[in-house]
């Protein structure tokens, strides 16, 4: 049961936790700001609380459906030959997002792209050239055309800005 509906359980836990968070916040920070009671205009908690109660009801129904095996299809993790690669790619994206403010766009992006290309099966020289070209094209569009300052990083480096 747990494995057969693994993703359903994960989603259920996530959605069941949300109303609890709403109730906790309503009773805590919102009440402290004096916005969790009174008429419809003064009470900022009333509407989310209604939605949260509806979510509690829906989560309960969904729990019964999972326990009763009434879902149209299972959601067991079915690893493919590239599932491990997908996990590495996810980690790569996370590391890239964390490195972006430190290394800046021009250092972190070609590195991330080159690793990504290699992970997806391209040869290193092609991956490096592709990564560099893609970095420059996107930078030219965002910095050159749209006047966006891409993350500068600690080296404060920019090409088109």
């Amino acid at each position: 049961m747990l494995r057969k509906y693994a993703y359903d359980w994960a989603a259920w836990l996530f959605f069941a936790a949300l109303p609890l968070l709403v109730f906790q916040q309503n009773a805590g920070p919102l009440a402290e700001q004096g916005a969790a009671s009174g008429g419809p205009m003064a009470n900022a908690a009333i509407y989310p609380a209604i939605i949260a109660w509806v979510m509690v009801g829906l989560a309960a129904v969904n729990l019964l459906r999972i326990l009763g095996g009434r879902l149209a299809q299972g959601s067991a993790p079915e690893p493919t030959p590239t599932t491990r690669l997908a996990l590495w790619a996810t980690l790569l994206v996370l590391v890239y997002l964390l490195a972006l403010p430190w290394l800046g766009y021009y250092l972190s992006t070609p590195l991330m792209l080159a690793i990504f290309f290699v992970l997806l099966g391209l040869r290193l020289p092609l991956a490096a050239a592709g990564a560099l070209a893609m970095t420059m094209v996107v930078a030219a569009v965002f910095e050159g055309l749209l006047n966006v300052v891409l993350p500068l990083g600690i080296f404060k480096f920019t090409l088109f800005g």
Partner: protein
Amino acid sequence: MLDLLFQGAPLYFSFLSILLTLLGIVGGLVIGVLPGLGPLMGIVLLLPVAFHLPPIPAMAMLIAIYVGGSAGGSISAILLRIPGTPLAAATLLDGYPMAQKGRSQDAIGLSITASSLGGLIAGVVLIFFSPMLAEFALRFAPPEYAAMAMLGLLTIAIVSEGSAIKGMIAGGFGLLIASIGTDEFTNAYRYTFGNINLSSGPNLVAVVVGLFALSELFVQIESGNFLARPQIQKLRISFHALRLVLRHRGNLLRSALIGTGLGAIPGAGGDVSAFVSYAVAKRMAREEEGYGQGAEGGVVATEAANNGCCGGALIPTLSLGIPGDASTAVLLGALFLLGFFPGPDLFAQNADVAGGIFIAYLASNVVLVVLGILLVPFFGMVLKVPKAWLLPAVLLLSTMGTYALQNSLFDLGVMFFFGVVGYVLRRASYPLAPIIIGMILGPVLENNFRRALLLSRDGPMIFIERPVSATILAIVALMLAYVVYTTIRPRRAPAP
């Protein structure tokens, strides 16, 4: 109706708008051709760029991507038997057999031409009905608006693929996300956890990009085949299909109207309208037309319907502020972020903008037929680009696009979080569109709900004392009863 077009013409007819319509159609067709992407992904990826543009050129670009992306999926359906988008799933029933008989040129030409003409027919309906609907909605007060928002969200939650309960949970999730930030009435910080970045709530674009683009990236990586290059027949430019499609004008008109009608029902979607139109066309056709074996009429019916659906979906989006599908929900969000409020007020206060959007929609469909046919050989080449090049490009565009909106690294964190959430929800067969629609309709629902309670002397009774809101809520109740019935009824035993 026509005065709207006259008012919108000066706004639309600029070099930038026309250029962005051309680029939007090409971009939409390319992204539609590539299996697994589609118009929504195209809109999502270029949404951040749109916010750096003037409103009408920005909307022209996004609408062109919507139109082009809806039509482009048929090309891979015809050539590879893989619909580029779910909208084109019905097109392969006759498009692929046509290609197998050596008529891929005609099949693609027919699909592009029928899409374009279907879109234009829907455009006429859109221009005619939207102002009428908006005028009717001008009489709405807070109880009616709240009821309409509820109905719109519930319809999409129920009709979306997957179970109705999951759709409703997804919609509720969207409503809760929308309640994060500073409360408009009390100025209290709600569910911000002391984080100043959340004082205006999570950025809609970051959520959309995470849910749709990033989670799709993870799914695509898991499916492998990064270096595969499909074999494609050599394609040439031919306008022969323009004559071919006229042989099916009755079918074209009927299918476009079916698509428009179904598109106007929130959640019904282009794939549903394409299959319905196909079924009707097949039923009305002579046997010798050979539906299912490469009938021209089959391609015309499905493509006229699924692009007609785009125009139909824009009707409730623009006139009521209730999106017809996930793509129009994002278009609606774009309009909000560009400073306009879709709904009756758009027609009353910004008629020129509404007119400009109508013209952008019509122009997109005209450009579609020209560029769609001229660029056919190019699309054959696009289909040969391996995923190993596309996926990192999608990641980079998603990341920088999200960052560029507010130069915010926090938004990138939001994008990543919703990317992971979106992946888990996809695997658990939750529809994602209701989350976005919940996020967009959340403020409309809450503000009007609280305003209605303030106006009322009998608390929530105001919602059933007023005839229009009572009628809408009765429909909501019927839909909920249907959901309860389908959830608790005993399942049929499987056939032996």
